[in-house]
């Protein structure tokens, strides 16, 4: 199963179902399920949900390399968002523009290896595809006061004319960072690093206090 002869080593990092391995998202220790059972979404201005255990892949390739971009899009079966700060969503696959030569994709963790293998098969040239599934998690936020809460947290203009649905920014979130995407008029999604997840969770609880916070699980 080792793949040492290739120029780039990839590995199916997800245990097979029969191995009976439980996966733990970065907020596992918080016990969101328990909290969820005690909060009422109707009453809350901010509703929080962790989309844990997703597959996260970072694609690095120059946007100027038309051939490779084309191949990548064929493999993905979706267009790469080439214009800055944009994103593409297609079924379970979300592709976020991070920089002119970088995209962050999320998809089911079980599909990651297949996609990596496809890339290695089809892509020939200078690119990299890196699995970051263990190091990232997604916080989905919605509610009437989500924008107000985010205004306390990130130094970015969230007015709908400046930050329409689908826009993605990488920015500072309090004293760490996050990739922020608007998924609806009052819905946002944060991609955050595992080791900072607890801090951001604490921050969101505090910043949402005056609006009421509910958790979904």
């Amino acid at each position, binding site marked *: 199963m080792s793949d040492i002869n290739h120029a780039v080593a990839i590995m199916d990092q997800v245990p097979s179902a029969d191995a009976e391995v439980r996966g733990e998202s970065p907020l596992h220790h918080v016990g969101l399920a328990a909290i969820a059972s005690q909060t009422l979404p109707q009453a809350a201005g901010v509703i929080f949900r962790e989309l844990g255990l997703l597959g996260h892949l970072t694609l690095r390739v120059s946007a100027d390399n038309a051939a490779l971009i084309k191949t990548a899009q064929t493999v993905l079966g979706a267009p790469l968002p080439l214009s800055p700060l944009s994103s593409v969503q297609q079924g379970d696959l979300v592709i976020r523009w991070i*920089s002119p030569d970088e995209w962050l994709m999320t998809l089911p963790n079980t599909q990651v290896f297949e996609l990596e293998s496809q890339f290695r098969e089809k892509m020939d040239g200078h690119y990299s595809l890196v699995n970051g599934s263990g190091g990232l998690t997604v916080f989905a936020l919605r509610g009437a006061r989500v924008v107000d809460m985010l205004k306390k947290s990130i*130094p*970015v203009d969230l007015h709908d004319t400046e930050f329409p649905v689908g826009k993605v920014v*990488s920015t*500072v979130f309090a004293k760490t960072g996050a990739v922020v995407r608007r998924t609806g008029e009052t819905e946002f999604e944060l991609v955050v690093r595992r080791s900072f997840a607890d801090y951001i969770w604490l921050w969101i609880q505090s910043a949402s206090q005056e609006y009421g916070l509910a958790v979904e699980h």
Partner: protein
Amino acid sequence: MFHIYCPYCCEYREEEEFHSKGQAHIPRPLNPEACSDEEWGNNLYFRKNPRGLHHELWVHNAGCRKFFNVTRDTVTYEIKEVYKMGEKPSIVAEIKA
């Protein structure tokens, strides 16, 4: 606090997302061994530090993580121009005779 246009993200962002990396356009000598201690020291440490127009290197470290150049007045703090790595500034300080 500065409002800086990132030439890669193509919009203005807050200074908090960026880091200043000092004077721009200081290429690493191609053959360091050929440098005298003096030349190496000059390259490493000695800076223009102008009062006025300054070409400096910034990185959008909390954003796209790209390095780019900024031409800024170090007295008024006006940003006159931003340009990508490898590009030349169109606004330059007049050379004092």
